[in-house]
């Protein structure tokens, strides 16, 4: 120690030979303010850039939005083309995805959180769900192409609404499961214990006590997952959703298109007029997403007030 003290260059603080301790506060504060300026700039830049992008799309597409645009079929002439088949296709797909993924995801979440013992099986499923969240969506499209379009063609009708919706349902299943588990975990254990003490079985406790309390969170998570499915393009292109559909789907086995695919198709055309159409399509798509996001928030607030 004595040796250290007499030799400042070996001091653990790294002081130079001129003195062991130099605070240089003004210099450090100057770097500090530069750093905080950089941090604020980053946030401002991020928000500004995204606002600019959305503002640009609004300016480009707003003039094209009209009732005719929403109720016309696609056309080779940009001025006559509309969103009808894409809009109807999106609604069909969304309803099926919700009907399939909600019970599956909530059931699996309830099983993992309330019924499964802490076994290797439950842990394996948990690791598996985490891994699925990192798989690119286009890979789900390849799975859907093989399983739903090829193997299950007699049931799904090949490149149909049903194949597309089932693919998207698998895609958002991990999200629904995770949302369910988190909402269930937020319900206090004392409630379950009270139920058991009254002689209720585990299912009765889950069904009558826990689920009603967890429902707002589960619904919000599911709607957010659905809004992710609405924006997905790549898996549906892979399973073969068409880009030009001039009729409305009649049953689950009909060919289909959806909003993002119609937008993709218009963007990739060279004519300027189709780009305007795509901007208007994006406004509709973002509008649908905004509607879903805000209904998720409203639903949560409404249900939370009732309990």
């Amino acid at each position: 120690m004595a040796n250290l003290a007499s030799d400042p260059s070996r001091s653990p603080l790294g002081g130079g030979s001129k003195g062991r301790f130099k605070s240089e506060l003004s210099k450090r504060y100057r770097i500090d303010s530069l750093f905080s300026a950089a941090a604020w700039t980053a946030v401002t830049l991020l928000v500004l850039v995204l606002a600019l992008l959305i503002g640009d799309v609004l300016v480009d597409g707003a003039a094209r939005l009209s009732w005719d645009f929403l109720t016309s079929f696609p056309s080779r002439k940009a001025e006559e083309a509309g969103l009808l088949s894409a809009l109807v296709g999106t609604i069909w797909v969304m309803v099926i995805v919700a009907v399939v993924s909600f019970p599956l995801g909530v059931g699996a979440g309830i099983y993992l959180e309330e019924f499964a013992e802490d076994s290797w099986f439950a842990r394996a499923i948990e690791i598996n769900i985490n891994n699925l969240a990192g798989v690119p969506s286009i890979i789900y499209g390849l799975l859907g192409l093989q399983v739903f379009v090829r193997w299950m063609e007699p049931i799904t009708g090949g490149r149909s609404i049903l194949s597309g919706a089932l693919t998207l349902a698998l895609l958002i299943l991990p999200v629904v499961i995770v949302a369910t588990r988190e909402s269930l975990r937020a319900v206090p254990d004392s409630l379950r214990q009270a139920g058991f003490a009254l002689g209720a079985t585990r299912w009765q406790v889950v069904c009558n006590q826990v689920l009603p309390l967890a429902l707002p969170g589960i619904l919000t998570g599911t709607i957010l997952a659905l809004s992710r499915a609405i924006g997905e393009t790549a898996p549906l292109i892979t399973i073969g959703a068409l880009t030009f559909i001039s009729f409305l789907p009649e049953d689950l086995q009909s060919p289909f298109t959806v909003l993002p695919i119609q937008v993709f198709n218009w963007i990739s055309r060279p004519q300027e007029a189709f780009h305007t159409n795509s901007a208007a399509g994006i406004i509709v798509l973002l509008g649908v997403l905004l509607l879903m996001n805000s209904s998720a928030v409203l639903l949560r607030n409404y249900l939370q007030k009732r309990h």
Partner: protein
Amino acid sequence: MSVLPVNDTSLWKPTRLLNRRVELAVKLIFGLFALVSVATTIGIIATLIFETFEFFREVSMVSFLTDSKWTPLFSSAQFGIFVLVSATVMLSGIAISVALPLGLLSAICLSEYASPKLRSILKPLLEVLAGIPSVVFGYFALLLVTPFLQSITPGLEGFNALSAGVVLGVSITPLVASLSEDAISAVPQSLRDGAYALGATKRETIISVVLPAALSGIVSSVILAVSRAIGETMIVTLAAGQHPRLGLNPFVPVMAMTAFIVQASLGDTPAGSLAYKTIYAVGMSLFVLTLILNIFSFWFVRRFREKYE
């Protein structure tokens, strides 16, 4: 006066057998639902391996890994996967060099500098922005950013990796910012107080105490963003072009792995054809790439996680 007729035991029937059956049925059915997610994983791996295996019966593994051209639809077909991999790596590299500084600084600002009120507005906003569909960003990349970059960069072609990469970076920035912010704000206040007590300034505290403590969370958020960028499809298909080309020149059109899958899917690919198998071989490469990243992230988090109780 007793409300319960104690002497009449027939009124109270514990339906134990029925309850036990319902219980078992519920457990079985929900357990099956949980198995669907396992089946998805198995299905993905099985179909990819099966079709890739079929692919390698027609194309040798050596030429897949060493060819310097990607021309699967030509008569003299060549299958050099690294042509597509180089494009994907370059696009993700550009994206992460935009998203890392922007996202990390935003996360620091939100958790350390912004007031709680501002934070409560910006955080949900980031999460909404993270949910914007990628086809929308594809529109921005092709019709807004490319013309802008062309006006300041001479020789930039209509389709190029630069604007696709930059917009890809912007699209994953909210994810980096949001997840890194979670990691940074999970660092306990006592650590910051300790650093201040030792005379550190705010910046010194953040850089040498808070960020190292949140390192595992930050790294895993960045890796997740990179694997998003690698798997991202619409931006790179729309703005980077459809021109397979080996090399790392960001000013010319390139073709990413996902862009090839889209291009081939939009064409006619009957099951069993070589084009069909090629899609799966590219998908397999994509899957392996993201899997390696996920495993690395998993290992890193376990190795470097700091726990504060």
